């Protein structure tokens, strides 16, 4: 897949259809949008994170940087995406992805320090992303402490002070709205 906006060959499309949860139309649309983001002159097929973040679907999302980091396969993990990383992203956020895939990637997105669990620091950053930047919506430190304590009480089953993937999936499975809200459609 070079820089020029070319058609995707048919075998690749059917291969992507088999390996991801996307339909043929979604794959072609993704290719079109990705080619628009690509720089014509650059040699690599990676699109830097800043360009990805100009997409309207991700532009104002508070988790946009984490999403790019999670799906990026680049060595220094700078958040740049190839077309296949982009497809991975869309597949995880698509309509037909299973609850398991979605909760797996949601966990990785919320794990801000990438240590495999959600500890108090991750939870604090998560809540700050959810409540936004303005002063009136942010929680004060007392409320934050209370909130994190309650969350850990409710979801930390093995009482080790962090929420691991299974505990996270357990909470998610009780919330049937998750599947419909963890969606991004081009």
């Amino acid at each position, binding site marked *: 897949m070079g820089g020029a906006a070319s058609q995707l060959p048919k075998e690749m499309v059917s*291969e992507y259809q088999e390996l991801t949860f996307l339909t043929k139309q979604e794959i072609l649309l993704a290719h079109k949008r990705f080619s628009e983001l690509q720089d014509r002159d650059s040699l690599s097929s990676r699109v830097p994170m800043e360009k990805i973040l100009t997409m309207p679907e991700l532009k104002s999302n508070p988790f946009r940087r984490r999403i790019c980091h999670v799906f990026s396969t680049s060595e220094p993990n700078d958040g740049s995406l190839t077309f296949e990383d982009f497809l991975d992203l869309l597949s995880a956020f698509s309509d037909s992805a299973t609850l398991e895939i979605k909760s797996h990637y949601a966990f990785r997105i919320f794990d801000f320090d990438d240590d*495999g669990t959600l500890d108090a620091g991750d939870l604090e950053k998560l809540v700050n992303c959810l409540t936004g930047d303005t002063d009136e919506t942010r929680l004060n430190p007392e409320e934050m402490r209370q909130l994190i304590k309650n969350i850990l009480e409710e979801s930390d089953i093995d009482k080790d002070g962090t929420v691991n993937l*299974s505990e996270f999936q357990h909470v998610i499975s009780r919330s049937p709205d998750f599947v419909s809200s963890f969606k991004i459609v081009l």
Partner: protein
Amino acid sequence: MQEERTEPLMDQQWSTATLRVLSSMPSRTIGRSRGAIISNYYNRTMQLRRRRQSRPSIRDFAPSSRPSIRGYGGVETDAGVDDERKWRQLVINLQNLPVSDRVQMLRCMPLSVDEKREIRYITSPYLSPFCFFFFILPNGYGGMVDYWLSLLSFLQLWQIALKKVSGRFGTGVLSYFVFLKTLLLFNFFLSIVTGFFLVLPQAIYPALSYALKFQGLELLTGGGYFTSTVMYYGYYTNSTLKKDCIWQQAISQHSNQTACHSLYYNMPLAYFFTIGFAFFITGIILVYTMSKSFGQSFRIDKSQGVLAMKVFASWDFKVSKKSSIKMQCENISTQIKELLSELALQQNTMGLLQKFGKSCVHLLAWTMCVGSTLACVLAVFYFSDYIRARVNDTANPLVKEAGLLALPVVVSTINLLLPGFFNAVAWMEEYNSPSTSNYVSIFRNLMLKVSVLGVLCYHWLGRIAHDPTSLGLQCWESFVGQELYRFLLMDFIFTMLDTFFGEFLWRLFSQKALKRKRKPVFDIARHVLELIYGQTLAWLGVLFIPVLPIVQIIKLLCMFYMKKASLMMNCQAPRKPWRACQMTTIFITLLCFPSFLGASVFVTYTMWTIKPSESCGPFRGLNSMFQSGKRWVEELEKGNPNLGWLVWAHTYLVENPFFLFVGAVIYFHTQVLDGQRKIISLLQEQIKNEGEDKKFLITKLQFIHEQKRPLSSHRIRGASEVKPEDSGTASLLLKKMTSSLPSLIFTPWTSWH
């Protein structure tokens, strides 16, 4: 609550070495490392292979999958070798699965496309002739499916519009439009069935009847010109439509053409079975959808873990507009703060006097609502009787037709004003949670609509059908059909007026005159209930107007565009939390239970007990509509005694529809149980993961102690790669885990009950 016990573990500051040990524990690497994912999926493919009966050979069982202490040892050094082995085992397992399972398993793995491609190439490296069949056919077959899907692209027509709505307003408001789309599909199916089997044959062989002049008022009243068209029941013939015979007889009186061969179409039978079949299939689809929804959304309805769910699962990724995201942040912040304060307040118990005061207020509110509903129902009851008595007094046909519009107008006005009154009453009440107030308001609205529809059904079946001559009618079915058409139309006109006045003008007023910055809120529950009400009318009327589903389709299409335009211009998203999945389940349940059930009871009662008109319609001359089917089955049996089982089936299934309801209830219960089974399997996996962590720590401890044991003389050298506190904390962790394992088993179970 076991608050204090957990503090020691949570507040410790771990050293870097400990953190390293912790971060390589299996439960913390599942999410991250490729090796852990491969190992996880290796286990799953093994389970799948066992289930699919292609028993794996003993060699395939890796030692560590057997839960015995003997297989432990050398965890540190063999990590890389272990990964490679697991990878190879995974490939073998995948190769032994059937193709569809393999594809599904590959898709579900949370690996990148690159890695999946690698696995795929190895598991199916070449296209043998057998594989050829599986690989090309799905592609070719997929190509066909894609082609047909793109033909059905009119369903995707609204995808862009729905995306805009969800981008700005979120999943809650989107669920209203998705519900509208679902209703559209139901009506589409219904109109195809009735159109193809009823309207088309009758239109091709038109019955002889007098034609009235078309005046404009017919579109509103449905009477006049339309009574002598395929629109109404009364037009349909009770004879068997025969090809060739009608033309021949009309043209040449003298010829002896009696050989009417080829097609013939028994209209009464077709009418009876088409309506029955349409309702049956719609019922099945509804029960199936409802049960699936129920299984998903009502797994555990205890409000345990509300805060964790709110933080982890409430961010709506579909919202993309900046102002909407800001609003979503505000909403989530408010909801979290409310939940926190509620939890804090739960410590204080309310005084007895306060509780009494609260119940008094609730009682008063309920009395007001029930009273107003009763008053409206009585008003409809007496007004309908009054109209029936007075409608024949005027000689002017135009005034007569317009007079018939009075009842629909009154009912629509009631449906418009009373929910507003209920909302006002609900302001003074205080509820424990916002979802309770939602449920209460839905229940009150539902009660109103069900009672009004009940009174109307009594009016049509009990009064008009019983005594059609009081209105001077020859064909009461067509009249009832016209009434339903008028009701449907009035409902639509009033919705239009409500959108215009309630949303557009109110926004202008509140922004210009009252100078408020907030736009009116889009009331999802009220609008969905209106949709359900309209659909009930359509189902009630299908027996009398076979083309009513087409009218309903046109109405729904107009409503979609109108509501969307009004939404974009005038409204804002609801501020209260809206649990879309649960609410959608409730709406589908309401569509199935009061709405569809009521309509099918109405239709069943009409078909089974009421005597059809003598002079019109396909069932003239019979004692009941049901008789046509029964006679046909009896004739079949006389002609061919082997078909006795058909009569038996007919008697038990068709004559006694109660049987079907029991089946529906059983299916519904199995779906709910299915949902709960999934929770149990998740918990089992959790317990298994805890076991893996324990194994890991035990082996680590063993390794550390083995390093320390023969080296008591080496301790002086100082080159200790093992810090004493590591083994100490590792054993502390292990102790913690062993003590918390029983609570792990018991806490989720008790919370579940």
